[in-house]
């Protein structure tokens, strides 16, 4: 930590601006000055993790780009991964009660139904979808369902693959489901059943990166909750375009309860369900 003009990892205000612009260009994530303390702390951790002596040498190496792990570690530090099983599960109710019947009706009753959770963080969301389907969807025995989880953060994907959770993450999971699908791995830690873990395919992707997102196609349902709020106008627009491209015509997009597509992009059709608003990619017939 240096002189009075600096904070945290030794960043001056000018350093912070340069860093902020760089990180935005690489990820689409914008930090306002109000996040300065949070950002400084995480940069400090990234510098220490990589063994650099200070911001200047670390940032130079980061910009040089020949050590991809520097950027990935930074992304891992700066993205927020707080979640838990069955969070905002009224949207899973909507999926079971209305969305999946509509999807099947549109496709003549045949699967596979493809569902994407993005960002999936440490796995709670895609595994919650799996549990709700296995326990509550009456077509699960005759329709194939693919569940995919994706995130920009490689650390959380490793944790999602391991699928071991503490009680805080699991507090909303009914006891019979706990007994059926989880095994106590250590004191207060529970690991999800191999079969469910194996059924969910995990990917690393940045939702704002059109080139990588082109690989995601033909999803019937996407959950993209509580991430667009971190993006500025332009990154939100690009993320919306990429999500649109990942859906089948007629496919459904769920956003977080405090998010609205109406101020981001007009390309989706908002549909009011009893459980709330969901956004649909228009079919060819109406677009």
């Amino acid at each position, binding site marked *: 930590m240096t002189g009075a003009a600096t904070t945290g990892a030794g960043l001056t205000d000018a350093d912070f601006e340069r860093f902020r612009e760089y990180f935005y260009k690489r990820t689409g994530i914008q930090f306002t000055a109000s996040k300065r303390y949070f950002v400084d702390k995480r940069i400090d951790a990234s510098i220490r993790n990589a063994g650099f002596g200070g911001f200047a040498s670390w940032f130079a190496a980061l910009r040089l780009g020949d050590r991809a792990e520097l950027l990935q570690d930074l992304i891992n530090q700066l993205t927020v991964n707080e979640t838990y099983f069955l969070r905002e599960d009224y949207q899973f109710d909507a999926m079971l009660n209305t969305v999946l019947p509509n999807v099947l009706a549109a496709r003549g009753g045949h699967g596979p139904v493809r569902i994407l959770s993005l960002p999936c963080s440490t796995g709670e969301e895609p595994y919650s979808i799996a549990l709700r389907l296995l326990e509550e969807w009456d077509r699960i*025995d005759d329709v*194939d369902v693919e569940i995919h989880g994706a995130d920009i953060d490689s650390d959380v994907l490793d944790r999602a693959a391991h699928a071991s959770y503490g009680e805080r993450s699991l507090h909303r999971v009914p006891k019979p489901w706990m007994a059926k699908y989880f095994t106590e791995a250590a004191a207060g830690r529970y690991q999800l059943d191999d*079969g469910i873990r194996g059924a969910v395919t995990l990917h690393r992707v940045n939702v704002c990166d*059109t080139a990588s997102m*082109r*690989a995601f196609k033909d999803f019937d349902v996407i959950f993209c909750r509580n991430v667009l709020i971190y993006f500025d*106008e332009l990154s939100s*627009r*690009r993320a919306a375009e990429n999500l649109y491209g990942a859906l089948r015509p007629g496919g459904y997009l769920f956003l977080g309860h405090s998010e609205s597509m109406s101020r981001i992009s*007009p390309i989706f059709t908002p549909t009011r369900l009893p459980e709330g608003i969901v956004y649909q990619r228009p079919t060819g017939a109406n677009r």
Partner: protein
Amino acid sequence: VGLVRRTTEKAEAAEQLSVDDLLGRLDDADPERRREAALGLDAVAAAVDPLLDRVGAEPEPRARDAMLTTLAAFDLPEVAEGLVVHLASDDAGLRTAVAEAMAAMPTSVPPLMPRLLTDPDHDVRVMTAMVLADLPHPSAVTWLTAMIRDDTHPNVVAAAIDALLPSAGPEHGELLRDAVRRFPDDPFLRFTVEAAIR
């Protein structure tokens, strides 16, 4: 049957296209291909002119919006100049989409404001209010309050009020009441202000 894992990822099969291929696809008969091409041209400077040439004539909203997303990312004076003409379009979908894109251009759009705020076409000034509603710029509120205070057309004033409301505070109460007094025969404007003040 049941939960299944996909073993062959489409990620591996994603087509890699050159800039020339993408530029060529801007004229593809399939609107989805045009949409994907426009998005794929992100940060390709050579795509600015071809996109500006096509955006006004693109019949498919999804392809047009993708073109606008890519163009807005440049946030350059020539892009803003190329887009601003569409604020006067007779096509409501086009002018609205362009306004939304311009709201994502906080560097190149503000220099146009003196001209837009005094445009002789009141419909252009209405669209300018829509741009300012979402433009992340420190002067956006100042420009909107100037529109509410000075513009002579009730539709412009109503649009500016609508744009200001999400960021309005008690300090704007008198400005809004003044607007109602200036246009006593406009029930929509009165309703908007009364609903906001309540």
